[in-house]
Each structure stands twice: as structure tokens, then as C-alpha cells.
């Protein structure tokens, strides 16, 4: 507490609380298994920091799966 880093983290944390309210507003009140959003171990990271540290997957365009392939293989 008192350090510049603490101040930045605290501001980021407060922003994340606002984000949780928004994310939870989409949950269906009738459904009790809708996703819940709130404080996690990542709440003091900005979305950019989170993306940089934890999201390392790259998108690759793949061919569409077609039933045709299976049908062809099943021909005696």
C-alpha cells in the first residue's frame, strides 16, 4: 500500500468491478446456471495485460467438416 504500483492495481481492480456488473446484467434471471462474473485472481490486471499474459492461442482457419467425407469412406 502507498506505492505507485498499488495505486495502479487498485484502479484496475475498481474498473473490473464495473465490468462484472455489466457482464452479469446479461444473465437470465429465470436460469440459475447462467455464467457468473466477479472477482478472480486476474481482477487486478487490465484486459490488455490479461490478454498478453494468459491468452496465447492463435486462430487458424480450418476446412469445414463435411459429412461427405464420412459417406465416401463408408462406401464398400
Amino acid at each position: 500500500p502507498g506505492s505507485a504500483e498499488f495505486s495502479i492495481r487498485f484502479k484496475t481492480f475498481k474498473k473490473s468491478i464495473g465490468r462484472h456488473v455489466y457482464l452479469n446484467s446479461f444473465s437470465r434471471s429465470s436460469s440459475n446456471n447462467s455464467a457468473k462474473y466477479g472477482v478472480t485472481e486476474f481482477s487486478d490486471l487490465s484486459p490488455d495485460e490479461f490478454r498478453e499474459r494468459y491468452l496465447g492461442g492463435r486462430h487458424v482457419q480450418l476446412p469445414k467438416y463435411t459429412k461427405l467425407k464420412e459417406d465416401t469412406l463408408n462406401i464398400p
Partner: protein
Amino acid sequence: LAPKFDWREKNVVTPVQSQQSCGGCWAFSVVGGIESVYAIQGNALEELSVQQVIDCSYKNQGCNGGSTVGALSWLNQTQEKIVKTSEYPFKALTGVCHFFPKSAFGVSIKGYEAYDFSGQEEKMMEKLVQWGPLVVTVDAVSWQDYLGGVIQHHCSSQEANHAVLITGFDRTGEVPYWIVRNSWGTSWGNEGYVYIEIGGNICGIADSVSAAFV
């Protein structure tokens, strides 16, 4: 198709791991899939080295990111044997690729399949049962704040930035969902797992689906 299916119930899924601050999700998901397929074939469930794939898969960028299909393609081309985690432990940093004697224990793949199943999640469920746990990519930006429950909003298709492993599905409740193993430790989500609604390609879960064969 059964209304509910989970490979964890067959004891062929290794425990949730933590990638820490290493962007090696692509390696965790691919190695997790191979561990399961190896066990499904009647072998012992072994924890295999994620670090080996991170260090050695030259088509990818180690802890700076990579693609699941790139890793599978490399494993298939090189026939590299993935050794046990105990032999080549996770360090959460990209390192120099270590080589092992040909006689050392390891699991290599015989091939793999990789497709876009968007709009065909029913077929994807069949493939999960047929092939084993599925390696998929997703948009996980909103997962920073995920506590539990079934994700139905707040993520996009065609914008994958993370890789995970689908171990099962559950269609018995009001909202059918995929059961997905993440690699952020057991303190996140549902003891390390996340549930994603089936049917709308939520988070792009059906955009890039792959499985290895051993």
C-alpha cells in the same frame, strides 16, 4: 448420443494444470488431448511434457503463443515422442529444446484431424465420443472475470485467442453445455473447468476443433 458424457468419468483425463504467466495454452490443450487418447487406448494415464512441446515446436512461439494445429502438424511430421512431465518439467518459460534417447519412453502421434465444426455441434459431440477429448480454440477475453455457470454471452467466434480441451457435454438441463478443461489452475472457474453453451458456436468453440491419434 447420450444426454450426458464426460471422459473424466472414464479416468482418462489428467488433472487441471496452471500455465502461469506463460502463453502456452496451445501446448497444454494439445498435450492434454494426447494424454487422454493414449489412456483411452488402454494405456496408463500419464502426464506428458507440455514444456517439451513449448520448447521444441518450432512452428510456434513458445510462451508467446502458438496454434494447436501447428503443434499437431509438427508432432505428426517429426514423430517426436512426448516424454513424461517428470522427465521434462514445466518451467513457464520458453527454453532450449531437449532431446532424449530413442529408447526413452514417450508418446508420438500417428495422425490428427482438424476441422471447422461451426453449425455442426451435434456432429462435434459425436466426434468427442469417437475421437476422445477435443482440442479447441476460443475467444476467452471475458473469461478473466468468469466465476462459474454456463457461458452464453460476451465472446465471439472467429476471434480465437486461447486454446482449451473439451472433455464432455451435458444436455440434461435447461441449457446444454460443453465441459471444458482450462489451464489456469483449479482456483479458476469450476475447479479449473468452464461450461459453454452448446449450439451457437459460443466463443468460437466449434471454429477450430482437432484431435490426435496415437
